[in-house]
């Protein structure tokens, strides 16, 4: 690790000031599960490190004005143990409970996972299904943008060097909305995402799909929405039978997205299984299973 000056602010304002002052050469450490490796292996050699793990004000989970608001410094474990999330957001539980290992979940933060924007990152996929926005704070003030606009792939998320990601927020689900998530990993713990599917569905009064979002994780360089698929699912009756009929379309979507990649052989087949489980979760949540 190259020498650096270490800062451990305790308020967001302090942190934002530090980032503003040192933005030319700064790294932010939250959970550290990725950054500390990069620092140790000298892939990152900043003059300053701002450790934001002491920003207690960013560890909240709340529902406010119809929005679910997650402080960026919640660890995966904290989210998994949160009663509100357990009750209202089963797909998020499904996501955070399958990240890395217990130790990684105890350290890693949800904000870090989103900012890091790894190809195989777990949470951006599900947050896209939730229709999430990110809140970015700097000394200039606050910016809010959709996660879709924010996440343009590894090392290319739209955060400015003087900004701090403080919150992930998305509309609270009504009784007619549900989200599913399923991750395929090579083993049951310490597994990176081989392939993930997340899906949002809102139903009509007569039990048809009014709106939906379909997100494929670890297919493209960032979690990918598939509008063509969403188009096909909209209007379908919300039954196992009609939803399952769309599964081959998932295969077509993967084949079209990565026609030449070696892993397409796997992903185009595995995606049906992952999508099927998302449908099952959604039907269960909507009381249709």
């Amino acid at each position, binding site marked *: *690790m190259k020498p650096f000056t270490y800062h451990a602010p305790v308020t967001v304002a302090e942190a934002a000031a530090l980032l503003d002052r040192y933005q030319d050469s700064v790294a932010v450490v939250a959970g550290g599960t990725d950054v500390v490796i990069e620092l140790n292996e000298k892939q990152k050699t900043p003059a300053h490190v701002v450790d934001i793990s002491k920003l207690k004000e960013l560890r909240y989970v709340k529902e406010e004005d119809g929005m679910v608001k997650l402080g960026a410094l919640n660890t995966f474990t904290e989210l998994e143990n949160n009663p509100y999330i357990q009750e209202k957001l089963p797909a998020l539980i499904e996501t955070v409970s399958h990240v890395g290992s217990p130790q990684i979940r105890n350290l890693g933060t949800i904000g870090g996972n989103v900012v890091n924007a790894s190809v195989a990152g777990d949470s951006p996929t599900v947050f896209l299904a939730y229709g999430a926005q990110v809140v970015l704070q700097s000394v200039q003030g606050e910016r809010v943008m959709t996660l879709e606009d924010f996440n343009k792939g590894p090392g290319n998320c739209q955060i400015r060097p003087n900004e701090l990601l403080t919150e992930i927020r998305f509309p609270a689900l009504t009784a007619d909305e549900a989200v599913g998530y399923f991750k395929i990993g*090579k*083993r*049951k713990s*310490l597994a990176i995402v081989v392939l993930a599917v997340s899906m949002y569905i809102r139903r009509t009064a007569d039990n048809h799909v009014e709106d939906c979002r379909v997100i494929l994780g670890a297919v493209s360089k960032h979690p990918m929405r598939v509008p063509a698929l969403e188009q096909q699912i909209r209007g379908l009756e919300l039954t196992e039978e009609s939803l399952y009929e769309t599964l081959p379309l998932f295969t077509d979507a993967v084949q079209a997205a990565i026609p030449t990649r070696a892993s397409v052989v*796997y992903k185009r*087949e*595995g995606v049906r*299984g992952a999508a*099927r489980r998302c449908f099952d979760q959604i039907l269960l949540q909507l009381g249709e299973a």
Partner: protein
Amino acid sequence: MKMEKDFAVLGKSVVKKDTMEKVLGTARFAADLKMPGMLYGGVLRSTITSGYVKALDASAALAMEGVVCVLTYKDIPGKNRIGIIIKDEPILVDDKIRRYGDAIAVVAAESPDILEDALNAIRVEYEEIEPVLSMERAAQSDSPKVHGDTNVHQVRHLEHGNVDEAFARCDVIIENDYETPALSHMFIEPDAGLAVYENGIMTVYSSTQNPHYDRGEIAAMLNFPNNRVTSVQAATGGGFGGKLDISVQCHAALLAYHTGRPVRIVRSRRESTMVSSKRHAMKMHYKTGATKDGKILAVQATLLSDTGAYASYGPAVITRAAVHAAGPYEIPNVRVDATFYYTNNPMAGAFRGFGVPQVAVAHEGQMNALARALNMDPIEIRLLNAHRPGSVTSTGQVLGDDVSFIQCLEQARAKAREVLPPCIPSAPNKRRGRGYGCMYYGVGNTGLPNPAGAFLEVLPDASVNLMVGCADIGQGSTSAMAQIAAEELGLEYEDIRVTFANTQVTPEGGATSASRQTFISGSATMLAARMAKKTLAEVAAAFLKVPEKDLVFRHREVYSASDPGVRMTYRELMGEMKRLGRLALGCGSYNPKTTGLNPADMSGVPFEVYSYAATIVDLEVDVETGLVDVLNVISAHDVGTAVNRQAVEGQIEGGVVMGTGFALLEKIETKNGRITNPVFSKYLLATSMDAPNIYPIVVEGSGTAGPFGAKGVGEPALIPTIPATADAVEDALHIHFGRLPIQHIDIMRELYRK
């Protein structure tokens, strides 16, 4: 058939001698060792796979404050070639770079940070030549030669009976290709060592399975007599064969020699995996012929492997693979042709099983295919062909009374009936399968002398110092030696203190490899104890006025077998020894009773004893994701006599999980000779959540060879699970996978083959 064994100490589960310090965290591994004035050593490694060093400029590194020295091959006072069998690997590259990561220079610095900067500051100019990256290329006449004038590293031919004539008589012939990958040991502790050069003595503490071999290589490098080098095994965090070759020992010693200061080298995970040996990837073609009743008449096998840039244990792997190629079955006609090539790929060497896991994938794959072809029960067809006492092996060896393979098969089957649920999938997207795998494994080096020794002294208070060469890498040999000595002397396990793997005080132990230490060092220990006991018996016989032959030594007492009232305690006996001025000393050595193998056909007696095993795997495959869930594994092992039952079970359980990983998950990947997955995030081991329920079965036989009939289990523990897992996948999906590992991607490719 089970012999009643009335042991006082043996066969019990004892807490291993090293347990206390390991659960307290006070065990000292090599990376934990620190001395005043210690320097940090590191290695500059080649970033090309094949070529020459044209120029090396260390001036920038040497100019750094805190850099003490940079050494190259020119600084080696003695021999610059190492290797357990063939000395073909340079300690520091002199003539040629043969693999990615070859050691070019070593650096000593005052801190790890300075060391890293210094290594980065050394400039190397290379001249690259075409790397040989496949066996096919290696075999071509116009390919560059890695060593000498041919890339053929080793060839073996085994011929037993008349294979051609036998195939003509077969009702069914099964022919298949099999392929197993290069694998990494992935011991959790990366290699490390500390060298101290003081008063003309070089002492090296290291993470090793092979301290006596290390001593010889260090001495040759320094031109020292062997007795001026002391090689001490530090607590060693796993080995599995990967710590048999020289790792940091020579480099640290060379730096200590030149600087006069202690030097510690600790490899990173990446460096450790990059340059330690790998399991030989193997391509196998098998032809197996049988009668319609399932009696196998002939096996013909071709084995091809890439031993990489250096020989390491390659010659041992090829011999052992050929000898074991037909499996634990009496097959009258066997032909094996094996060829190993040198390439510029990572060095392949010893890894738990020395080629037997690879051939077991094939011979068991054939056995299972044969059972399917003949619609026979997989256990029944094995019972029909299994080795029994008196069977003749494919090297013409007539087996002794120590073969309990039948019992392994029967006990595994009985356990399966008892514990396995019906073979019914748990969900519509699951398929369930049962698989079978067996093995036999010769204990010790193949047809070669491989002795080990032991020294022992019974002290005046009836406690014992036992000194054995054998390195304990966690498997528990130290404790097994203590149990064997206690059993023979009539003392308790707690009475024995074992000093091990320290060449200053312990005799030659040979390598902790080939599942040999319980059998060989154990025999040496028994003999050492017996020698000391002889003196004790003379004194006790005179004191108790009974014949020596009538004496029983048991539970810290000595008594007359015919009149048990006539007895004395061990303390009293030691008092009598003191009065008479006698010392209870013992030394022992043991070399297994083997013969060399006839080079023409490999006939001979390669091993004194063999261990046997039979394994049944119960698993489910998710046909939507291709992921396999191994649910239950039953593994029955003929170990002769279990010295420490709990430790035997521990070996079996560890082997089972390593075996499922071999079959389903693990694989070394390379690009241009460079390993691309040398870290735990890319080379995946099973976690606690992936591990199946394991039912270890310890089968004890009536054999008389070895210490109290004990054989070996370290490597056998791994082997049968591999083919059994592959077979269970095949059973679940009705798809034959000859190539391992069977990863999720392979399953999906085959399931949805267009």
